[in-house]
């Protein structure tokens, strides 16, 4: 039997103060990010903010500063440029202030045709989104978040106890905020795909938490004479090797996707990757200790057995 961990007996609950401190910082970062998104000053993707994104693939390498100079000379000064080095790809983004009727994408293409006549290129992709669509998408994403959270709290509360439902939801919220905060700090673009990743990791982190909670419930029902803290600690230790093995397999899947899945999948997989790491951490260090913050709530789970 190959085992990463033998039987462990780590006092996870005893370290909850440190965990809460660390998580608190991540959550604050996440909340700052949410506020900035709401104020419109975060790095929102074109799909949310509205605007134009054009990706060009050149035959020869193109220098970003020259490209920027060319765009500025032609009245497209506030463009954001990003290059994908090895493949001579250049992504040009212009945010909302311009409306779609101006055919910004065509203007961008025209600028490069004119200024770099010897460097032939093809348009890999272009995207123009009017501001109204962006608002609709923001709304839809928000609704999806609220509904999935309400559904999850309801389900977990029904299967366990209310405090389990709330602890699980809080832990999940923590994971989403932490990843969002990390994206904000690194100034990574928050696109529709990233939001999808956030929702997926919410589901994943919830799965992870439910597995731990399941064991806690099982142990609580055995009604040992131990304190609740010990019971929870034991449960976490018992499922620890499973927690680590599954996280490891998901990480094994995500790393190749993040590294070699192409530029579209990169940020998506990156968000998921962080999410898995935070999700694993939070089911051990956040969700389980949160149960202890609700002392004496030994509700129907204990009565039933």
């Amino acid at each position, binding site marked *: *039997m*190959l085992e990463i961990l033998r039987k462990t007996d780590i006092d996870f609950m005893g370290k909850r103060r440190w965990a809460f401190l660390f998580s608190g910082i991540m959550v604050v970062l996440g909340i700052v990010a949410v506020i900035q998104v709401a104020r419109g000053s975060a790095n929102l993707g074109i799909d949310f903010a509205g605007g134009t994104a054009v990706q060009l*693939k050149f035959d020869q390498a193109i220098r970003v500063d020259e490209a920027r100079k060319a765009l500025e000379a032609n009245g497209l000064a506030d463009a954001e440029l990003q290059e994908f080095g090895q493949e001579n790809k250049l992504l040009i983004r212009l945010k909302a202030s311009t409306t*779609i*009727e101006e055919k910004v*994408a*065509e203007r961008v293409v025209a600028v490069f045709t004119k200024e770099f006549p010897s460097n032939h290129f*093809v*348009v*890999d*992709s*272009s995207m*123009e989104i*009017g501001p*109204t*669509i962006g608002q609709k*998408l923001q709304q*839809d*994403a928000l*609704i*999806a*978040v609220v*509904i*999935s959270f309400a559904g*999850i709290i309801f*389900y977990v509360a029904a299967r366990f106890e209310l405090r389990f439902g709330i602890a699980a939801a809080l832990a999940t919220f923590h994971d989403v905020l932490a990843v969002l905060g990390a994206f904000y700090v690194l100034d990574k673009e928050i696109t*529709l*795909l990233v939001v*999808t990743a956030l*929702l*997926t990791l919410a*589901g*994943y982190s*919830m*799965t*992870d938490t*439910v*597995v731990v909670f*399941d064991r806690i419930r*099982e142990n609580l029902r055995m009604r040992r004479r131990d304190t609740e803290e010990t019971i929870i600690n034991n449960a976490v230790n*018992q*499922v620890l090797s*499973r927690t680590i*093995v*599954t996280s490891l*397999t*998901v990480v*094994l*899947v*995500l*790393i*190749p*996707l993040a590294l*070699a*899945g*192409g530029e*579209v*999948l990169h940020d*998506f997989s990156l968000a*998921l990757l962080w999410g898995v790491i935070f999700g694993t951490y939070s089911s051990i260090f956040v969700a389980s200790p949160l149960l202890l913050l609700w002392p004496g709530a030994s509700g129907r789970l204990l009565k039933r057995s």
Partner: protein
Amino acid sequence: MKKVGGRLTLLALVVVMSVIFFIPSYQPFYQALPGWLKRVMPNKGITLGLDLQGGIHLVMEVDEERAVEIAVDRSVVSLQDLLVDKKIPVESVARTGPTQITIQFQNAEVKAQIQKMTDDYPTFSETESAGSANRLVWELRAIEVKRIKDSAINQALETIRNRIDQFGVAEPMVQRQGLKQIVVQLPGVKEPKRARDLIKETALLEFKMLDEDNQPKLDLPARIPKDKEADVLKQVEGKLPEGDQILFERAFEKDTGREYRIPYLVKKRVMLTGDVLSDARVSIGQFNDPYVSITFDAKGGREFERITGDNVKKRMAVVLDNTIYSAPVIQDRITGGRAQITGTFSMQEANDLAIVLRAGALPAPLKIIQDLTVGPSLGKDSIEKGVQATLFAGAMVVVFMIVYYRMSGVIADFALVLNLLCLIGALSALNATLTLPGIAGIVLTMGMGVDSNVLIFERIREELRLGKAVRLAVDGGYDKALLTIVDSHVTTLITGVALFLFGTGPIKGFAVTLCLGIGINLFTALIGTKVIFDLLNQRRKVEQLSI
């Protein structure tokens, strides 16, 4: 001994069904099948999303307000004609608001005469409070406004469909979305700009007379560069004769091919519109220059004959979407119901013009509010990379499971392959559209499938540590893991459903794969692998489980 026969049959059935449904998704293989087999097989598989095969996705909004204005403008013209026919002297008829027509005249006698004509315009009602002794105000009825708005979007849909059909795109999608939006998807289009222009062009063809008497008074420049139209309009502001407007002809320098504009003073009154066309074709002129020859229907032909007969030696402008294409002098009455639209066209431009004229005009301009274009090379890149990364990721997991769980790991890997097969089969059966996030969803479900097996195996290990016999340990492991697996899958399913209900485009694709994947996971983890363990235990008494 547990019976495994029934479950094995179910498993085999699922595998066979998955393969059958998957086959049409892999065209090279499907095409090689004999014809009789193709007839009994499903004929549609997974479609690739725009992000994978390239193409355009447009969301457009019909400018409904403008559609109403255009309808009112038409009524103004027809009213003017009717007044001329009946020889009723009026000073002016004009649209004075989005839905309002104001008629000015000299005396009350005329007013009575016009009021008698209201029967001919049942869609308008007279606003008495706004009228006076020499003024009548008509307002378009609210119910008619609504009807025009409704029909505008339907007409736009119909027109766009016609145009795309004639343009020739494989599997286009033209759909109404919500109240006033139209979604157009053209997969695999090679010339996105051309397709976009073709869809968006209002293509309102009008014949109008030049106001040659008044033009010299305005002192218009002979020609101006493209994009400088606004300057000319500013120059003549307030000086335009009643019922006239400035329109520009597009023209090209002979030697350099540079485009420029010629301003003309044109009477606003529309003599004839593209409604009366029965056909439009590309023809080649004597200097090898393409032009579009149009054929009027019977009524239009008679109209055209009358108009040309009345205006011999005058200049008539052929106006498309407010740009003059040509302004020839009418040499003689034109019979036979044919005319030509000349101008400096490339062959392709002439072709596209013929298409839009045949398909008819849009009832109102369209506003593009979302435009996604993916070049075919990026799509190919994405597929290659996505598939490579997926295969690699899958291989890592397969190896890891075998190293960690030995023989049982092989069983888990079998479940993984089964998972993938069923998922692709199910996607094919639903004719789902596979997008890049969809591929990510597949990968994620693979990860989650492994998770279920890890949960079960860890439980079995625990039971074995307690010293239980292999068969009991396996049964116990599955029993105890069952609730956990169901709970964890249901919570993820909730997220998946929320994403499906409120996601758009690629996100929906992701949600579909996720939800399907969760269901299939439950099946393979709880039935697929269990049946193999049972089978192993049934054959011979297993003393030692490789786990």
